[in-house]
């Protein structure tokens, strides 16, 4: 096995951007004087943005030779994410549980 001695630029950039996005989210949540709903929308968008960023910077999504596998992976990941997030919201906000 050979080792590429290339400096991992994309990883470092991705890491820095992730830090920035995280601290912006913390700032929005703790320091900005806006309504709860707006805070939720902003930090939610930042989270999606960061997930996308990491997909490209860390997860080599553009490097794979097998496009079909990537599509299946993405679809499955989206399914799991929707089940967890939308499912939890649905379950915890309906019926007697929420009141």
């Amino acid at each position: 096995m050979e080792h590429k001695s290339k400096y991992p630029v994309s990883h470092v950039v991705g890491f820095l951007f992730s830090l920035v996005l995280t601290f912006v989210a913390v700032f929005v949540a703790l320091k900005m004087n806006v309504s709860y709903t707006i805070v939720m929308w902003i930090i939610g968008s930042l989270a999606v943005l960061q997930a996308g960023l990491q997909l490209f910077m860390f997860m080599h999504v553009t490097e794979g030779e097998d496009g079909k596998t990537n599509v299946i992976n993405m679809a499955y990941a989206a399914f799991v994410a929707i089940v967890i997030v939308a499912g939890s919201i649905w379950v915890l906000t309906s019926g007697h549980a929420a009141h």
Partner: protein
Amino acid sequence: MGIKWNEIFVGGDPLLVGSQIAIVLTVVAIVVGLTYFKKWGWLWREWLTTVDHKKIGIMYILSGVLMFFRGGMDGLLMKAQTARPEMNFLDAQHYNEIFTTHGVIMILFMAMPFLIGLMNVVVPLQIGARDVAFPQLNALSFWLFFSGAMLFNISFVVGGSPDAGWTSYFPLAGKEFSPGIGNNYYAIALQIAGLGTLMTGINFIVTILKMRAPGMTLMKMPMFTWTTFITSIIIVAAFPIFTVALALMTFDRLYGTHFFTLSSGGSDMLWANLFWLWGHPEVYIVILPAFGIFSEVIATFSRKTLFGYTSMVVSIVGIAFLSMIVWVHHFYTMDAGPAVNSFFSITTMLIAVPTGVKIFNWLFTMRKGRIQFTTAMLWALAFVPNFVIGGVTGVMLAMAAADFQYHNTLFLVAHFHYVLIPGVVFAVFAGLYYWWPKMFGFMLNEKLGKYHFWLFTIGFNVTFMPMFFLGLKGAVRRAYTYSAESGFAPLFLVSAIGSIILAIGFAVFCYNIYWSFRYAKRNVFHDPWDARTLEWMTASPVQFYNFAVVPEVKQLDAFWHMKKRGETLTLKESDIKKIHMPSNSGLPFYMAVVFGITGFFLVFEAHIAAAVAAIGIVVGLIIRSFDYNDGYYVSVDEIKETERTWRNVEGGTENHVG
């Protein structure tokens, strides 16, 4: 550093003091024994630093046996306490701790390592690979699991056990209602062990996708490999949920956040929701590999190819999909309203469909087969009716409206023991009797195996069948005692007697391991069961490089057809090339130690000490990043030498099949 020494050692209770003395004596005996027999170097070289998937598998299985003993003792203590009404053997607090550790240990530290152990030993061999994709990561998986398991196990003598149930529901598990450190063990130890499991999932997905022998397409993979593959995918999907939930729990308990608390905007049911989002897939993580084991055992001992291979694969994928969308059936009584409860009722009942397909496939595999009643096959045969009882009561529980009656009763407890014991434990025993010669080069004694089988299955039914009726009569789970007027006493007594039979069965199994280790014949044939899959092509025990020449696969049950063509033991020496193997590494063991120390300090909320210990984790990561050891080559001469030792043993073949 803020450690409260008086909280660390739990004293007073004679049972606990006895355990503490026993643990100290065992540790002393192990240290003295290793020193006396000069085995420290052997232990380090052959086991602690190994990256060989077969040895890692054996260590997993050994941990599983130990944890089965620990969890089983918990079970026996509970059965002793409830044998008669108003017993004073255990107090309420002690009983709470015991049913909590029983659940956690049996699921996470018994079922998981047993199955992951068998996956480790068998899957690379079944697909004709020389190891898993990431051997050192595999060792790290094991050592993190072991670290977490040991941290959890010391809780009952050091600091106090978690006592909020294996589900650890909030608000009870929160700091307000459980101020002691016991539940910190739950949050931290399961986190460490869970990291290991997640890495195992990734490792096996890559191994199965990338390292199959030439010619083995996905639809030519043995069924155990298929189930391991799908299980690994569920692990990768579900375990991160648990990781996050445990992290939030840790923040709540250690740093005063309010994710799951009743006050300050927390939601206690969010914990239940996240726990079961992981917890339900988790039960399929343990049941699917077990289904794979039964598929191999039933096909081999019916001497037929597995019936309905394609429908089997579709069913596994279907179960994996459905497993992600049924979690609410664990808390219908939270009452999220008719829409939610109906949706999850329907998805839950749907799971019975692919599972039923699998049951019929196994039955049709046996139909017109020449069935051999080996111990492994007996476990598979007993699995079918017992598991169906568990499955049918599961469909009863799936009906949300009816579940309001069954919820929190012993009916539920009986149901999941009827699913998990025949489904997982029977499978593990079947797998151990079946693959034992591959792991150790000798067979487990079949006669003792049959005693083990009958005692265990009869004991199991006598223990858990009465619980269905107790539950229907209104006996609640997790109650440490009951009144004589309740009328529960006779059935509880029957159940307690059953648990003793069950325990004797397990003791016979342990004795069987001991007996076979001492006395069983060693020159066992490499294919003692006349089996169908590639793992039986190798020597018993397997050569460290697995295959001298990687086999070429032409169809399903590849090894069976190779035997028909008479090409199994012919090895052209010109085909042998040098083999690349990974080097041993002490780093995974080191990581387990530093994770264990960090975890221990976190449990006792000694934050500065934990931060200092965590530096050790970072150091380990850095060392690994600069590790350029690419492994070594096994020379052609050494391979030839090794192969000659077992391929020439004509007449030394031993076939134990009755």
